[in-house]
């Protein structure tokens, strides 16, 4: 924490102390968000064994409530707990400063502070009061971009944060070369793994992890680009790798009007392709665009966990999507996909688990008036262990360019994987968006969701309240803007 606070202090002092006479510029924003959530945790309870009935399929019920009975645990079941709440505050401050006396030098930082100010439940990560998510200096000189500090590499391998250095070199307009390395951070946590994960997980070595990576991107023709990336993370003790992966992507519009993009990642440790997709899009005329996708999905787990060794299986999916722009005010789309999971090679007991899944959705967008937008969608999905039916609708009305109101409604089936009963949620609420000045805005909203449960008497229907508001204050201006007074 001391290091992080120190780094932030150094960055701030650089910005504050820079000579104003050297065309100093600063662009950034501060966003404070407050959230309130109602929640009812699930609690375990026990049922008297003598009153439990065993059903023909082997399951147990007690007064209509599904219970699970073993010799070890007795008969237990889950039910709704008491209403709890969360009141959490998040404050983000992000900025880029330039004009620090050296041409092409800038400093970027994104700092986040969190606090739980009420309620019984901790908002995720709010036990960590302060994070320097990004804090790096960047030097742009012609075809070279170099960064030093806390940064992240964004690619088909996900977001990889690290404290270190990176260089991006573009010797020609058609070629990019990138290399980076440093101390690896736990994904999404912006902290060294040992520090971030040890309190909650076993098998976390008390060692640093180092990251190295390289990438290249080639644009051989207009409208065509190919990228390849290799990345590995290794324990500081060199006792083993945490990850060794590669990713490739390809996009082309050379077959215009058909455009194609494809990507995949590869895990060297297990010798298998993780996620991959290939998508082709083509306009069919009369405002219709057809998009077809073939997709493979296999989750990735780092080598310091046991999960990757459990041989997760991939699903392969074919999906089609048609978008129809009926008029300039009305757009509709429909999509459908079918997937199949690879053979899991697991023993079948009682009955096999579904390996197939389907999903479909449709929606539309209607500009009822220049300042009135109606948006609605519905999707249905059937897969192993659960079924989803979900609909959304929203209306957004811009009373003035600075003031907008929205009304959202949603209804969906709550995902209850491998659980008896069906949960239904419906509700919605109003929202607002006020631009007080071009750089100061307030957004907020509140919603109420009614959650009901079928076939699950231990879970009482209830209304959940959610509310949130955020104040965003922008400062500085976008150096890319050509006109003063245009909101960044």
């Amino acid at each position, binding site marked *: 924490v001391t290091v992080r606070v120190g780094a932030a202090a150094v960055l701030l002092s650089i910005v504050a102390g820079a000579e104003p006479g050297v065309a100093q510029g600063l662009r950034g924003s501060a966003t404070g968000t407050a959230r309130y959530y109602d929640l009812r945790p699930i609690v375990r309870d026990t049922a008297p064994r003598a009153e439990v009935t065993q059903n023909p399929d082997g399951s147990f019920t007690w007064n209509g409530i599904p219970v699970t009975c073993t010799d070890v645990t007795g008969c237990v079941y889950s039910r709704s707990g008491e209403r709890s709440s969360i009141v959490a505050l998040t404050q*983000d401050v992000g900025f880029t400063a330039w004009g620090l006396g050296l041409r092409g030098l800038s400093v970027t930082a994104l700092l986040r502070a969190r606090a739980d100010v009420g309620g019984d439940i901790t908002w995720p990560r709010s036990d960590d009061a302060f994070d320097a998510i990004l804090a790096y200096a960047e030097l742009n000189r012609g075809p070279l971009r170099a960064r030093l500090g806390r940064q992240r590499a964004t690619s088909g391998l*996900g977001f990889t944060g690290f404290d270190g250095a990176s260089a991006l070199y573009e010797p020609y307009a058609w070629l990019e070369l990138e290399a980076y390395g440093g101390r690896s951070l736990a994904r999404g946590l912006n902290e060294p793994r040992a520090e971030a994960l040890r309190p909650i997980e076993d098998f976390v070595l008390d060692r640093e992890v180092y990251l190295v990576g390289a990438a290249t991107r080639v644009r051989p023709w207009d409208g065509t680009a190919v990228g390849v990336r290799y990345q590995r993370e290794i324990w500081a003790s060199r006792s083993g790798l945490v990850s060794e992966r590669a990713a490739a992507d390809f996009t082309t519009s050379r077959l215009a009007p058909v455009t194609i993009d494809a990507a995949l990642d590869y895990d060297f440790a297990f010798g298998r392709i993780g996620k991959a997709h290939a998508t082709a899009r083509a306009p069919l005329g009369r405002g219709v665009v057809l998009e077809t996708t073939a997709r493979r999905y296999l989750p990735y787990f780092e080598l310091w966990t046991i999960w990757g060794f459990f041989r997760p299986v991939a699903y392969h999916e074919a999906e089609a999507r048609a978008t129809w722009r009926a008029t300039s005010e009305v757009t509709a789309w429909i999509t459908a996909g079918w997937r199949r999971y690879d053979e899991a090679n697991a023993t079948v007991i009682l009955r096999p688990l579904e390996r197939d899944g389907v999903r479909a959705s449709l929606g539309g967008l209607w500009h009822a008036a220049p300042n009135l937008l109606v948006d609605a969608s519905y999707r249905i999905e059937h897969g192993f262990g659960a079924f989803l039916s979900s609909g959304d609708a929203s209306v957004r009305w811009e009373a003035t360019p600075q003031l907008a109101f929205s009304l959202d409604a949603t209804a969906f089936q709550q995902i209850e994987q491998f659980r008896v009963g069906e949960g239904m949620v419906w509700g919605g609420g109003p929202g607002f968006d006020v631009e007080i000045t071009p750089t100061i805005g307030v957004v907020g909203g509140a919603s109420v969701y009614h959650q009901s449960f079928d076939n699950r008497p231990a879970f009482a229907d209830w209304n959940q309240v959610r509310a949130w508001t955020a104040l965003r204050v922008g400062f500085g201006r976008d150096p890319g803007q050509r006109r003063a007074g245009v909101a960044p």
Partner: protein
Amino acid sequence: MTSAPLRARAWWALLIIAAAAVAGSVVLAADATDRFPHHRHARLFPLCTGCHAGIEAGERAQFYPPPDNCTSCHDGTTEKRVEWDGPRPYLTNLAFEHPAHQAVAVARDGAALECEQCHSVSAEARMTIQRANPDVCLSCHGHAATDHFVNALCETCHVPLVETELPAQRLLALPEPTDHYATGFVRELHGAQALATTQRCATCHTRERCLACHVNAADVTQIAALPPAPRDWIVPSYTAHYPEPASHLAPSWLERHGAAASRQECATCHTQQDCTTCHAAPAPEVVATLPSRGEVSAPGAGTERQPPPSHASRFFERDHAALAAASPESCAACHQKQFCADCHDAPLQPSYHPRNFTVQHASAAWGRRLECSSCHEVRTFCRACHVQLGMRTEGRLDPGFHDAEPLWLLRHARAARQGLESCTSCHNQRDCLQCHSTLGAFQVSPHGPDFDARRAQKRNPTICFACHTSDPLKGTP
């Protein structure tokens, strides 16, 4: 409240304007009336050409008699003295020449026109004359003119403005045709009229009038045909008018304008700078074909940067990735690469999911279109909430949660392999190791039939000891 000095100045201004108006009227009226009392000389001069000898030949020097002709009688003795030193310069923009006009009349009618036919006031005595007025011209030039300023063919009688001898004062006082005030004149009518004939325009305008508005003046033949003002003229500074075409008012215009964009379609009103107000570099190719503001006299219509309607969608934040992937050039029209990097690389605005995403995050995670772990550390980010909400394991082989499946513990393997991410959002590794380790209750191997143990061990041998008490590959080839 208006101060007294201001009021005084206003009165002076009104007075000057009124005086100028009266004086102007007198001058113009004098121009139109006969200053020489022809009728009093009716019996003295039998022929017009006696004094206006040069008319028939078109010799301007002899249009009027020399002053000596007057003083021969008006010498102060025979007749009272008259001070006349010759005619004032006759400044006009008329294209009329007497000899040519007579030639046409002779060719058409077989006889020359008499002076009285144009200059005599009808029903008056002989030599009650006037200058020929437009109505007289139009009485013979019988085209369909109903309005001298609108329907007449100006060039029939008038020379282009640049050829006139009229002083600036009279140029500025040239009457404005009533059709110039018609609705849609600037937007539609004037262009059609100019296409039909630029000569009408040239009667009152020089090329500079077009250059004041037309960005693409160099492309327009009709404008090029219009003579420019002589260099010694001081051309007024005209105000550019850019009425918005009907097409621009369509709700989807902003999204569709790219398809219709061309120099021919846009450059009448727009410069490159109008495009680059919104289009970030590299701008579409058509932008470079438009004239730059520095190259032309016209200022261009000007544009305001504004987001397209799609951005107003509540779901845009969530759906923009697909749009961006489908048409990155569309994004690049307005956004620079850094704009994307603000969130995706160096997030100054760290919001990826739509607002209130947590309501449906369970279904999104279950659908697995996106990989949550690309950005989130599942073991902390997901479990932090799930464990607090009761979705956790308590004790050894805790059943309870997945109660739809009898014998869940025996049947969970396939579900785990198909949805292992979901498992890890609630369970930690120790939960699994209760059975899946050499020290576990059942010592169930989780590896599967095609597990390449050596390959995995080569990259991280330490993880083997999470389940195995000794090197599982020791002694194997």
